[in-house]
């Protein structure tokens, strides 16, 4: 028979092609509508308020849960960054603020529904808000920074209206409704899984969701991957472009860079500065680099331990650091320097963080050290954590070298992160470096959080009566001019007393496929998938 393998094969091939074509097209389409995001961290909880939840969990929760309000975004050069001065409603269609600034009325969107299709009610919102201040979670301490502390402050004012009342017109009350912790929960669903020991369903919501946000959880494998599917009935904003988002944990940073460059993954953040520079040079991917406008890297001295309790010693250290070299060696200068300003006394603006009058001047450092009664220097230990060693190690080496020139002997100690954090919380580290980010980048919040009170985030254990009083008052200051004056004074105190040294704001760098657009830097340093689209 002449009919044979070749014809048979051709026929089979044709058949295969005709069968394969539509499915092939369909899968290509799905791939285009799917965003694959690779990260070194893991989503370990779907409820961001659970203690121990990772930054990755915050990111997912922003996409899955709605809050009553949300920050807007603005252009910074070619990039998008969040704008904490522009607050819009998310689950609320309108927010009214009373003239005395003490009552906020949230009018819920009439058509908003939970993922299970049931309508969002004022009772749900009241329950969710109560949870924010009552549950044994990380939410209450955050809410308290906006004077929101007890359930009595929330009132159902109508079928679709909920009111928030504060005793004094706190500048940050409304901002706190926008943070990742302020999730709005389908209370009917959540209460079904609440127990007497766990009235706020913390255990159940850790692995399940009761949300109304733009994305729903399709699959959640803690520590490995989480897959999101778009909620086509979302009313909190414009419908996102991507139908599906895969959040995948890839621990090896080089592999993440390879995946994006080869086009197998669409987006990654938190790559190493050296990798990002190389990727940018090869030009196969798009790199979005934004200074972390609400973040900073600091070199802290423990103000309660000798010799750092002496302001002259601190000033001497500040005058002996090789800022420019450190910036180059640690970050490849990929960031915004917070040193090298030339003002003295009062800063030009009330923005914070802003460049401080810090410069390398060894003669001045030696003189200050002599005045402080340490003409022959002293020895100390500089501690870094393993998690930050990529940039902290070069910095530590340069600090050691430079301080040796003014006779200060520095031992570098590198600790695993849990040990590092423990030392930090116990305030037993004399001299160390770390990074910080303030969710709400208002200057008075910065100072209150990082420079007052005997608490963990007061890195330098700073205690200055004037600053304490200024931050207490500024929180409730309604006169913009007075507020600005107070903030300038705070920055002036920081410059004079140098409780710690702010060195720079690192860049937040996102590497993505060239056809992905709209990337926005958010205060919680994660990706908001709702901003992104493929063009």
């Amino acid at each position: 028979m002449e009919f044979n393998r070749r014809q048979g094969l051709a026929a089979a091939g044709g058949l295969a092609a005709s069968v394969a074509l539509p499915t092939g097209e369909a899968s290509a389409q799905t791939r285009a509508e799917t965003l694959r995001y690779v990260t070194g961290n893991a989503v370990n909880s779907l409820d961001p308020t659970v203690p121990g939840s990772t930054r990755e969990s915050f990111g997912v929760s922003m996409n899955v849960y709605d809050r009553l309000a949300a920050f807007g975004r603005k252009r910074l050069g070619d990039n998008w960054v969040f704008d904490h001065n522009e607050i819009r409603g998310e689950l609320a269609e309108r927010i009214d603020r009373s003239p005395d600034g003490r009552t906020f009325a949230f009018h819920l969107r009439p058509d908003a529904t939970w993922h299970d299709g049931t309508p969002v009610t004022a009772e749900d919102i009241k329950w969710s808000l109560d949870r924010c201040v009552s549950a044994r979670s990380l939410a209450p301490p955050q809410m308290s920074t906006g004077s929101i502390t007890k359930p009595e402050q929330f009132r159902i004012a109508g079928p679709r209206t909920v009111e928030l009342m504060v005793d004094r017109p706190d500048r940050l009350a409304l901002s706190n409704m926008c943070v990742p912790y302020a999730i709005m929960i389908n209370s009917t669903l959540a209460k079904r899984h609440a127990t007497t020991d766990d009235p706020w369903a913390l255990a159940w919501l850790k692995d399940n969701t009761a949300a109304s946000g733009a994305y729903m959880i399709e699959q959640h494998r803690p520590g490995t991957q989480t897959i999101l599917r778009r909620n086509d009935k979302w009313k909190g904003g414009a419908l996102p472009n991507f139908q599906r988002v895969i959040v995948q944990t890839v621990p090896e940073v080089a592999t993440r860079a390879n995946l994006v460059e080869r086009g197998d993954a669409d987006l990654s953040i938190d790559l190493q500065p050296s990798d990002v520079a190389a990727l940018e040079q090869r030009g196969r991917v798009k790199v979005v680099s934004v200074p972390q406008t609400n973040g900073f890297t600091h070199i802290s001295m423990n103000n309660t331990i000798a010799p750092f309790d002496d302001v002259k010693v601190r000033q001497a250290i500040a005058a002996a650091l090789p800022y420019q070299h450190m910036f180059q060696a640690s970050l490849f200068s990929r960031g915004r320097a917070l040193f090298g300003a030339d003002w003295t006394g009062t800063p030009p603006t009330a923005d914070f963080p802003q460049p401080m009058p810090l410069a390398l001047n060894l003669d001045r450092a030696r003189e200050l050290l002599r005045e402080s009664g340490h003409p022959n220097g002293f020895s100390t230990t500089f501690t870094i954590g393993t998690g930050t060693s990529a940039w902290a190690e070069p910095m530590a080496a340069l600090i050691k070298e430079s301080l040796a020139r003014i006779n200060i002997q520095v031992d570098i100690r590198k600790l695993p992160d849990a040990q590092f954090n423990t030392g930090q919380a116990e305030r037993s580290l004399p001299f160390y470096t770390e990074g910080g980010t303030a969710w709400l980048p208002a200057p008075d919040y910065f100072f209150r959080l990082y420079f007052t009170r005997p608490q963990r985030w007061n890195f330098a254990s700073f205690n200055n009566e004037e600053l304490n009083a200024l931050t207490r008052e500024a929180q409730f200051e309604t006169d913009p001019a007075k507020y600005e004056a107070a903030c300038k004074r705070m920055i002036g105190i920081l410059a004079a007393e140098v409780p710690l040294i702010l060195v720079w704001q690192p860049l937040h760098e996102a590497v993505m496929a060239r056809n992905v657009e709209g990337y926005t830097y958010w205060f919680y340093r994660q990706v908001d998938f709702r901003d992104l689209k493929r063009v």
Partner: protein
Amino acid sequence: MGRRIGVRLLSSVPALFGVLVFTFLLMRVLPGDPAVFFAAGANAGQAEIDMVREQMGLDKPLHEQLVRYLWDITRGNLGNSMTTGQPVRTDLIERLPASLELTFSALLLALTLALPLGVLAALRPGTIVDHFVRFLCTLGVCVPTFVSGLLLIYVFYYLLNWAPDPTGRIDIFAANAPEITGFLLIDFALVRDWSAWRAAAGQLILPASTMALFVLAPLARMTRASMLAVLGSDFVRTAKSLGLSDLRIIVVYALRNALLPVLTISGIVFSTMLGANVLVEKVFSWPGVASYALDALLASDYAPVQGFVLLMATIFVMVNLLIDILYGVADPRATVA
């Protein structure tokens, strides 16, 4: 034999108990405080640290914690992981098959390479063949797994694009794996999904090769040494003088007798691989138990580390027992003592 195995298992209980208590104490002696680490949210203060400490049961005195822990273990409860937010038991059950599948494949690969190489080297000692085997083994041992792993990824994925992307056990866009045994190659074979089986095997090749390279040396060297000893023994000379074929002498008589020390070494290599493949798991985003334990250790998360050590100790006991049974197969004179 069944009774002997039972006795062996029973006699390993004190050892396991010792490991348990030792790990428990060791974790608590380490300086990091997990409560501080996990209460790291913005504005979290001492109250939140105390709250986490209470949730983890760390506010109780040490002896009470130990008793509680032992009681939990007898009921099969290994505690909760703060790192993944799941019960440790669930995590280990989900991740152990991934580690085992990788380790088994790597060991199988290593043995199929090491045995012929070792035998060849033993048959031609001092020749170029022997030197080549020695070179290959040295290379495998010298290059750390994370270097060889990254190198393989760079060449076969990044440059040549022959290998699938090195992220986990299956293609992320593909359908989910059937969850029967947790061993993907077995599961896909059971449901007769051969294209998925090939994909899973493809994901496995690079990490398994990386690990196989690393353990090639002990296996090949042991085979060579043991073969050399056996080839010089009386019964091989007798067999030769009787005119038996070379193949029969080498494979049936010599190799079988030379296998005993190789088996011992394989058992040790297997146990070591299972715990030590953390770097390979990290590099290839393999969702196994070793990388799980490392993440937990870095966060001073007690329960997962304790669970992992207990699991490893149990596996070690099992593997040793299995090796002893296999001795009997290779050499009928040996028994499960």
